[in-house]
């Protein structure tokens, strides 16, 4: 599946949004592999919770595609 071209990175609690071209990010960030198919990521929302950062990737239709839980250190 083709990527629409850009990904918006958001950190909860920060007013800033960073928009990056898909060519500027690794493929493992730009796409999530679901059921054997590569689904484009268009929005990445990170939130710091305690000692962890939780990063959630969303698809073009607003669907939550995956969540990455940071290791404590």
């Amino acid at each position, binding site marked *: 599946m083709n990527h629409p071209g850009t990904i918006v990175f958001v950190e909860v609690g920060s007013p800033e949004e960073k928009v990056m071209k898909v060519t500027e990010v690794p493929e493992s960030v730009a796409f999530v592999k*679901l059921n054997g198919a590569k689904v484009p990521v268009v929005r990445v929302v990170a939130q710091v919770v305690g000692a962890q950062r939780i990063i959630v990737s969303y698809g073009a239709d*607003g669907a939550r595609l*995956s969540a990455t*839980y940071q290791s404590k250190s």
Partner: protein
Amino acid sequence: MSVKLGPKVDPRTAVIPGPTRATASSEAKETRAGWNPLARRPITQVHHRPAPGPTPPPMEDHPVVDHLEQQLLWAALPAQRQKQLHALIESTSAIGNRARAAIARVVEAEDFAGLTPAEQAVRVSAAAFSPPVIPELTIGDLENTRPLLELSRRQEARVRGFEFAGAAPAEVKVTTVTIAGHEVKITEATTPLPAGLHQHSTETIIDALRRMPLDALKQIQEVQLSSARSPTDAFYAQLYGKPDFRAYMNCGADGVVGVFPFTEAGEQNCTQNCVHSTHTVSSTLVHEAGHSWSMRTYGHASEQGWKDWEAAAARDNMALSAYAKSSVDEDIGEATVLYLESRGTPHFDTYRALYPNRFALLDRQFNPAAAPQPPAPRAVPPQFSGSGDR
């Protein structure tokens, strides 16, 4: 009027009395000394772990908190708030203890007696519910006393050429287990881990899966135990300015979970309340199961299910946890942990009283026979403040 806070306080007093300015300190001390940790609410089942940081001392009896419903301020609370507050202060869980301690601090404040009942109600409500009853995250925050689910079948195989995310093809051990009738595949790297790093064993993951509520387990298809770092680490390290950023777990909407090597050796054998414990792994998977069912059932962002959930959350008028406030997705994930992890325990009714409208929707998902009819839709104000909102 100076009314001493103590066992002889008339619970029908019109306005909750507070210590006078001259005696506030000594009386507050006396009140705390008078709390009898064994007198009224023995904490026999602590479903919620106390929050990190300073924990209030065990608090069981308090002359005002125990008779809150007989105070004038009670009438100033909306009916639903009364039900929620009643459930909270009567709860034998740690969240009940925390709330009672917070309310006690408020009513012992020097200026409290001079407030109107409506003002007192606002303060008491804020003390009990703000910040959220669950401070950060429900993941790993709930005790789990359920018996392990039955492991009925186990099959192992070696597979060559398997590709973990970001790693070269390698031989892996694939263990297929059937737990309570549900099949899960666990793929474990056989490549040696880099020095200083640790990874869960297949046995640990089987244990974590067996600790899950069955309704959540059904959402998990595969767990992959990699011996290589996540391919996203370098990018996120740079993006977030954290050179030591390391992903621990990645959960996809298809029920495939990736676990990456971690550094904390001491936590490997931890059973509760640490990031890499079996308990936390299990709890995290329950949270992710909440995303799986909601995506599958509610579908695309514009569909009615999400709006129904937002409306239910607005009617509950209370955050589930600080993390749940970030988006409707996370609210569902957190609610699913709370619902499934507490089901079958005495605390389930407490949580249902606190979050009745969300629990009604979860009934439709996990207990349709007992689910009430859906409420009529109505306009609600925006509930979620995070950037990941639908």
